[in-house]
């Protein structure tokens, strides 16, 4: 009886893992890619009949692709294309066992390559695939498109407030906090909030260590809330809004996020830059940036845009956004992505 019960359990769980590959206008399916001690969750949603896929490389490190799967994107992009929500290693709903030693940029680029290979295996090697990197995801993407001939695995790259150069990022964040902060104070807006930020930036002028870099990022995160024209994003409300319907593995996401915030991985990131190799990029590129993004300032996007060798490239600024255009200027975001993908698939 016990053997029968165990056998039934195995059969039941095996059923959950049956390969399911669907071509329709309204797909929602999940698979995993195992690599170097991590099983990374990949969710494909939308229109797989289109043969056009947009793979999101989420921010963080340690955030999750769940946050990008918004209702607006479902209604305005998933009807036309298949959106691919990939949870990087040690992030979101990805699982693994004692894989901390494999947490580095080179590994993440290899992970991305394998995710793309599996996507093509499942949905066809002739698919039109676009990468969309946001924030930290921009760093992985910059590493990927400047590595070997990896950029030719995709049709185009969409850089949304992505960082390709962390040391330069810190310098530009400091400059923007100072410039905008001093202007806001002159206009008597949120003076008590800006003063400590300005004071910190005046004291810490460059060659930032990891603690200073983190402090700058913390100030950058709150600074956009002091710009009255920018839509305030309450991330806690966002999570509550979607957590139940989209079945967020909340405690797993939190465990991963907390770990990555403190991990040694951040020391590698603090000195990572790809400005010097961006001239290798020749594929079509769209750069989307929020005007009031303090975390990854507009000048960082301009550095990226000016250095790539792509002849087919476009940079567009949203005047209404900070660091999270996907939430703060969703209509602009979807319209620009749609136009780019339609033109290059």
């Amino acid at each position, binding site marked *: 009886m016990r053997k029968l019960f165990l056998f039934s359990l195995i059969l039941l769980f095996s059923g959950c*893992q049956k390969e399911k590959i669907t071509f329709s206008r309204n797909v929602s399916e999940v698979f995993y890619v195992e690599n170097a001690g991590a099983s990374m969750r990949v969710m494909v949603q939308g229109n797989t009949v289109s043969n056009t896929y947009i793979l999101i490389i989420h921010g963080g490190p340690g955030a999750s692709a769940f946050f990008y799967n918004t209702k607006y994107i479902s209604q305005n992009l998933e009807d036309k294309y298949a959106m691919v929500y990939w949870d990087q290693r040690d992030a979101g709903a990805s699982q693994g066992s004692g894989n901390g030693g494999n947490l580095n940029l080179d590994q993440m680029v290899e992970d991305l390559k394998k995710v793309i290979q599996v996507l093509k295996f499942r949905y066809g090697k002739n698919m039109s695939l676009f990468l969309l990197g946001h924030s930290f995801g921009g760093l992985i993407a910059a590493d990927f498109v400047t590595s070997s001939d990896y950029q030719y695995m995709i049709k185009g790259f969409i850089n949304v407030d992505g960082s390709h150069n962390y040391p330069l990022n810190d310098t530009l964040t400091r400059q923007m906090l100072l410039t905008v902060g001093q202007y806001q104070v002159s206009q008597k807006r949120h003076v008590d909030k800006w003063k400590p930020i300005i004071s910190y930036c005046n004291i810490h002028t460059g060659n930032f260590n990891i603690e200073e870099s983190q402090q700058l990022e913390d100030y950058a995160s709150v600074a956009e809330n002091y710009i009255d024209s920018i839509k305030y994003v309450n991330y806690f409300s966002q999570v509550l809004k979607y957590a139940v319907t989209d079945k967020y593995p909340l405690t797993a996401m939190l465990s991963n996020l907390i770990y990555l915030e403190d991990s040694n991985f951040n020391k590698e990131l603090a000195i990572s830059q790809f400005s010097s190799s961006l001239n290798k990029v020749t594929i079509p590129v769209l750069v989307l940036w929020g005007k009031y993004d303090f975390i990854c300032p507009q000048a960082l996007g301009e550095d990226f845009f000016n250095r790539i060798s792509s002849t087919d490239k476009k940079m567009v600024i949203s005047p209404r956004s900070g660091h999270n255009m996907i939430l703060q200027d969703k209509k602009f975001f979807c319209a620009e992505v749609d136009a780019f993908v339609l033109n290059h698939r």
Partner: protein
Amino acid sequence: MRRTKSSGFISEFSVGPGYSRTFLGGTTYKVDDNGIISVISNAGYNYALITVGGGFGYDFSMKRQLPVSIFGKMNLLSMFPYNSTIYFRPVLELGFRYMPGRIKSNVTKESILK
């Protein structure tokens, strides 16, 4: 450790080790260095568990001669190594226990006392 008062009120606290085997909720692929893709069957992970929990309930057999008790219990499972960290997983248990032997033993005691 479970305590049942003569009123029927139950309180309990538990700590214990365990083992968890997860099964991933989707097809799992592996890509080798030559780009050959294979499917891993029964993909998942083994975790050590430590569980701490506590709760309350009511035993109907104490006052109402019903061999049933109800309970609510909150457990915190810690699974490790989960990625590079520990995964804390809260679990809420709500349930009832049917104890056919409980009433029989109570009746026997009462008979003896009389």
